[in-house]
């Protein structure tokens, strides 16, 4: 035992230990960096506030302009629907990629190769041209009567080709994300489920996919935010009601490009922030059992019974007092999860 330890032991014996009051290390570099950043920020704010060319009056006038707000709505709709198409396709593509059937594996691979290998702008132009070839889309019995007909003849006519173009292109990227997610789940999980008599689809949906989601959600959130901004390419279709197109059109009409850019940017930032909040909750949901594990409460009655020697196999139970920072009251240390 060193002298120091002996001293501490002494202190403990005689009551409260002598707490360390050390002089902290100085970090002058941090102060300099902080000062520089603060000065730059102040300059930026001053310039934003005083330079008349930012046109804050115009920004205020247009931020809730009906065309702009509608543009936000269309942009959101484009984002949500094309991501929905992409996610559904990506799950199918990722399952196909794992299939025993080589035709399915190859078609999945080909799909990803094709849509990832061509620019989304080109694909959007293509889908726009398809609507010229097929001016109406009918949903119905093949060669029989149409049940619903979508007439592509008003300003919204570019909408379907736009979400198709965006969705199909995105599905290729998402398929790779989903594939990585499915691969991240230990094979033992599938074997355990199989040994219990569960079967393919159920194992996928109930055991593998929920655990893969932990890996899938963060990059998918990233892709969704990317998609929000990729929707500005839909003028290639052409679809002309989204936020970027509308704000550009207003800018050209009013000869005030900068305020209208600020308007569009503010809306994109707001929507992105909302999406990020959503992502946070989805991540939390799928992280259950792994991330941010709070020490679960041990049923006290049962724990007491066990401590009193009730249950034979409960010999590894502790005393039932909470150790600050420790995993659980009676708990042994958290080991690797065995996933």
């Amino acid at each position: 035992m060193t002298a120091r330890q002996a001293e501490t032991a002494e202190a403990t014996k005689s009551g409260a230990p002598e707490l360390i009051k050390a002089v902290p290390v100085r970090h002058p570099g941090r102060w300099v960096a902080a000062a520089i950043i603060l000065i730059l920020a102040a300059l930026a704010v001053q310039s934003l506030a005083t330079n008349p060319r930012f046109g804050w009056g115009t920004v205020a006038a247009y931020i809730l302009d009906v065309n702009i707000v509608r543009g936000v709505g269309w942009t959101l709709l484009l984002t949500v629907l094309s991501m929905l198409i992409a996610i559904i396709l990506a799950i199918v593509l990722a399952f196909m990629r794992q299939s025993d059937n080589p035709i399915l594996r190859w078609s999945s691979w080909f799909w990803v190769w094709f849509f990832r290998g061509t620019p989304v702008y080109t694909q959007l132009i293509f889908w726009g041209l398809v609507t010229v070839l097929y001016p109406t889309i009918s949903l119905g019995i093949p060669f029989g009567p149409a049940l619903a007909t979508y007439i592509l003849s008003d300003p919204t006519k570019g909408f379907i080709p736009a979400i198709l173009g965006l969705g199909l292109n995105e599905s290729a990227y998402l398929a790779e994300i989903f594939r990585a997610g499915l691969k991240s789940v230990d094979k033992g999980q599938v074997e355990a489920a199989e040994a219990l008599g569960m079967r393919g689809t159920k194992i996928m949906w109930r055991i593998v996919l929920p655990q893969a989601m932990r890996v899938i959600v963060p990059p998918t959130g990233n892709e969704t935010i990317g998609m929000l901004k990729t929707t500005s390419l839909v003028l290639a279709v052409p679809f002309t009601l989204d936020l970027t197109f509308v704000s550009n059109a207003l800018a050209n009409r009013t000869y005030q490009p900068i305020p209208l850019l600020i308007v569009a940017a503010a809306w994109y930032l707001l929507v992105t922030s909302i999406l990020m909040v959503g992502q946070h909750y989805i991540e939390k949901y799928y992280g259950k059992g792994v991330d941010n594990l709070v020490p679960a409460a041990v049923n006290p009655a049962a724990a007491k019974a066990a401590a009193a020697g009730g249950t034979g196999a409960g010999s590894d139970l502790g005393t039932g007092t909470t150790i600050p920072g420790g995993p659980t009251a009676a708990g042994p240390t958290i080991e690797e999860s065995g996933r």
Partner: protein
Amino acid sequence: MSTPAQTTPNSQPAPAPASLRGAKDLVRIEGVHKYFGEHHVLRGIDMTVKQGEVSVLIGPSGSGKSTLLRCVNHLETISAGRIWVNDELIGYRERAGKLHELHVKEIAAQRRNIGMVFQRFNLFGHKTALENIIEAPIQVKGQDKATAKKRALELLDRVGLSERANHYPAQLSGGQQQRVAIARALAMDPELMLFDEPTSALDPELVGDVLNVMKDLAKSGMTMVVVTHEIGFAREVGDTLTFMDGGVVVESGNPRDVIANPQHERTRSFLSKVL
């Protein structure tokens, strides 16, 4: 596929322990071979396990113990031979002298009667202990949630973990996870339990809890095939001890006899290393 020539003249079926004489054969393994590509891993295994028997498998690493166990519930397909569990041919249907593969649905149905416990526990990481146990009874057997939960709590109590029902696997020690895994397998009311080195991933002080649960299970009359390096468990609980090496059964018999008086040099040298 044709049956390769028998390479194991010395693998004779073990004599039934006295207490189990007259019990029916629950597992019959006949002339089983397994290839992984060119690699001949099982080389003609014959073995029977009677109803209520605790059959312990030992052998050096790579001798094919896990592979044999995994063939019994068709997690691996066998290359030659036959395996029956409760007089049902595993993985195939024999019709007019020809074998037909079973549909995945039928294979899943066969597996329901066979519980398996893995070396690495393999609890579902996104489900609590309780949810792990009720998953298969609800999803596979179609039990209603209340019934399944009630049964799960009984099983958790049986393995000494009722106070941990709502813990995730990551919040449990290895020994606790393994006991939940045993409870999960039992929830399907299997006739046969397979254990593949259930304690070898555990810290020494946690091994005892798991072995105690297995002992209780054996006492309750469960038929068990246990791959383990716990010779003490084999001696105390096992009805039969089978020593495998190089894909064949080298010797098999009453655990106390085999341990005290091994008939083969390979058994002797293996036992001298693990005892």
